[in-house]
């Protein structure tokens, strides 16, 4: 145990340099994925036949193939057509596109679970379709989706580690590098796991707080 602590004191500062990279990769991708997910949901629930199919094909494509393959395709495959991204950008794009597909599926379920009468009442008082969706449908659907969305947010936080494979210097990459230098993979990956655990539990507690904060009786527990 003391050895584990000493190792930590020595190497943790270097390992923690990956935290801002991991967190920014995650925060950008989950946020962009959120908005893209909303657009996909809109297309699938309210869009015409063309948008419905476009959205459906997108979702099936990105849920049906591994994120690692998607990331390699974007980073290593697209340069053939002159489309070149740096590793961080390629990772953000891959995680965003992948996460959007999952988020869209969660949003769709929650949008469909909001009683139809809510939208009808909004239209009946003269709101446009857009106002009714933004002011009445979304605030309810987002509250309802929060538990599943939290799960997705945490899964994506862990998925940022695969950006290591294309050279993004995040937590896993640094751990692997320190491991090679110290030849103590056991300890450094234990530390890396701990760091991820702290991050995921912080995100989980924040989202749990947000869930309680935005709770409205009758909206989420029906």
């Amino acid at each position, binding site marked *: 145990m003391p050895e584990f602590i000493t190792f930590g004191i020595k190497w943790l500062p270097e390992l923690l340099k990956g935290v801002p990279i991991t967190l920014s990769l995650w925060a950008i991708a989950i946020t962009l994925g959120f908005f893209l997910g909303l657009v996909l949901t809109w297309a699938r629930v309210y869009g015409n036949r063309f948008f419905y199919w476009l959205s459906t094909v997108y979702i099936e494509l990105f849920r049906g193939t591994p994120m690692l393959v998607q990331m390699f395709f974007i980073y290593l495959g697209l340069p053939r057509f002159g489309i070149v991204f740096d590793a961080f950008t390629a990772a953000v794009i891959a995680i965003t596109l992948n996460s959007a597909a999952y988020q869209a599926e969660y949003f769709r379920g929650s949008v469909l679970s909001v*009683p139809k*009468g*809510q939208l*009808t*009442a*909004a*239209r*009946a*008082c*003269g*709101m*446009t379709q857009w*106002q009714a969706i933004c*002011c*009445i449908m979304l*605030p*309810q659907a987002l*509250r309802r989706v929060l538990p599943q969305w939290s799960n997705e947010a945490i899964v994506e936080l862990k998925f940022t580690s695969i950006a290591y494979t294309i050279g993004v210097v995040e937590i896993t990459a640094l751990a692997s590098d320190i491991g090679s230098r110290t030849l103590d993979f056991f300890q450094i990956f234990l530390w890396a796991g701990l760091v991820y655990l702290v991050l995921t539990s912080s995100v989980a507690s924040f989202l749990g707080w947000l869930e309680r904060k935005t709770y*409205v*009786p*009758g*909206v989420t527990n029906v």
Partner: protein
Amino acid sequence: MSESLVLDVRNVTKRYDSLEVLKGISLGLNKGETKVVIGPSGSGKSTLLRCVNHLTKPDAGEIYLEGEAIRDANINAMRARMGFVFQDFNLFSHLNVLDNVRICQMKVKGADKKTATHRAQQELARVGLEEKASAYPAELSGGQQQRVSIARALAMDPVVLLFDEPTSALDPELTGEVVRVMQQLAAEGMTMVVVTHEMSFARQAADEIIFMENGHIVEQGSPDAMFSHSDHERTRAFLNVIADHG
């Protein structure tokens, strides 16, 4: 067209596949009038009401509000002038009572928050619920929810109020509070079309009762004429059944 004609429904038809729900309905409503539409389930009463503000789009026929035809192009502005009270209230569940009564004023009429709040408080007081302003719909009884939904409609200063079976989803002991609010509105000269099975309301508050069946208006007349000496066998039979159950 009479100058005081607020709502003019002309020859409205509606068909769902092979089922003709409305077979050419016409009715007019003068300012301050209350008309009660009664009839068995499936007679087209609710469809008629929903056609009036195009929540259900009629296949044919015209609807005029204060002389202006309702079109796709002006539908939102027209709906803002017609209050609609639903059978199952449809209060916005994520908003408290005050916000429920404020939101349409602010989003549709562009009222500022202060004006909307003041107006909302007035209407909540009118339905006797000013002390519930911060409660959420799920925390209210059905009768209270329906009164809030009436306040929400009133806060838009509608020229006509449409009630779609406003007491049908309520426990019998809660219908009274909603009926009283509707009676008060009728007495104050609000223009209203009310689809209901509440015969006491129809008898007391209606200027005219319209009996519908199979997508037709079978008969219409004053409460007195309809209840005491209807010409139609079908109307008498329906009223007898309702009287037995009510």
